[in-house]
């Protein structure tokens, strides 16, 4: 794990009166959620239930129809709030450039995060995920599984306080799944907030909160 954080962070994420819609279709109405420091939340729900939209709303990408998101009691869009620096958002598309090599991609993101990760750190995490000999290869030459692993390296290389991960466990082999669960629990122990979506429960991962999103069939009020 990168440099040990001096004291565990105590930031928590609160969501008040959240209303989000997709294509004029209201997905969530006036919802209150809270994710306290050091918690892991599993967001569960069928496809199209609005999981991704909620994750994008939490990441500050999707504009909210109403309600607000407080990170450490400060509104996430507030100039002083360092929500954007503390947030690591991983989506389905892995946000890696195909023309660049793995090292370049990861280096770029860590520089953007503020601290250029050294080569040892890079190769250490790559070794944990058995992709250490691919560091110089172009991102486009990798298989889907390997590309996913490269995206997961960012979790280790960047010092953040909030993980918002959309379907991180999808098409991962068992070994990587355990590695990710361990990293999540370690990150939570350090006071970090983890929010992830997945179709099925992940055994071996101790979660603190489960949120399930489902359509209910009865007539809307």
């Amino acid at each position, binding site marked *: 794990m990168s440099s040990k954080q001096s004291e565990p962070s105590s930031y928590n994420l609160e969501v008040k009166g959240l209303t989000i819609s997709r294509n004029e279709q209201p997905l969530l109405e006036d919802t209150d959620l809270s994710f306290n420091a050091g918690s892991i939340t599993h967001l569960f729900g069928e496809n199209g239930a609005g999981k991704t939209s909620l994750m994008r709303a939490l990441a*500050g990408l999707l504009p909210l129809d109403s309600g607000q998101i407080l990170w450490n009691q400060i509104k996430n869009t507030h100039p002083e709030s360092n929500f954007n620096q503390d947030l690591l958002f991983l989506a389905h598309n892995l946000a890696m450039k195909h023309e660049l090599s793995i090292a370049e991609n990861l280096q770029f993101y860590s520089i953007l*995060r503020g601290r250029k990760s050294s080569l040892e750190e890079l190769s250490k995490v790559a070794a944990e995920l058995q992709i250490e000999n691919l560091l110089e290869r172009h991102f486009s030459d990798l298989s889907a599984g390997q590309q996913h692993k490269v995206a997961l390296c960012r979790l280790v290389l960047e010092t953040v306080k909030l993980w918002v991960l959309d379907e991180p466990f999808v098409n991962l082999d068992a070994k990587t799944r355990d590695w990710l669960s361990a990293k999540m629990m370690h990150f939570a122990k350090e006071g970090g907030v983890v929010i992830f979506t997945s179709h099925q429960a992940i055994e071996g991962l101790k979660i603190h909160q489960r949120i399930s999103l489902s359509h209910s069939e009865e007539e809307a009020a």
Partner: protein
Amino acid sequence: MFLTLLKRELMLARRNWVAVLIPLFFFVIVVSLFPFAVSPEAEFLQQIAAGVVWVAALLAVLLSLDLFYRGDFQDGSLEQLLIMASPIQVALSKVTAHWLVTGLPLVLISPLLAGLMHLNYAPNGAVEMNHTPIMMLSLLLGTPTMCLLGAIGMSLSLAASRNGMLVAVMILPLYVPILIFGSSVITASLANSGYNAQIAILAAILLFALVLTPYTTGKALKVAVS
């Protein structure tokens, strides 16, 4: 932060350098089509040189916009950039990269086209006047504005549709002022009358765009990603 973003953009541009050179070929080809279409006489070409070079530069800049915005939008890195860096910095880094990689080369190869279009033609006996530096100056002031305005159009149409024509339809009307003043600089210098006013206005429009556009492009990128 801005420099990291810029370095990345330039690294990406260097990686697919072929796609980056295409707008320059386009610029040269479009300009050299006119002598076929109109007539090769120097006298005549000189008259239309200013307008042809400017319109070709406009289209070349529009053509190359796609390269800097579409890729990031599709593979999701635009989202990451907008989260980690402020939208204004993202917009500025993309515009600067676009100008350095396409705008500036247009200015640098424009003397070649000045020759093709007999810009410095002087009927025998008349004093030989060199108008190329003026043309380069007008393009130097014009191309950044094209990149800035093009950035707005591109980021607005990113989430709209894939075809590049939409950007052109939206943004070309906004290019009218710089086209008017840009090409009139060269026509004024051809008639060796004063062109400082036009240069000043071009520079004013550039500063105006430099102040307003990054914020707007940032907003448009946020909309595209939402």
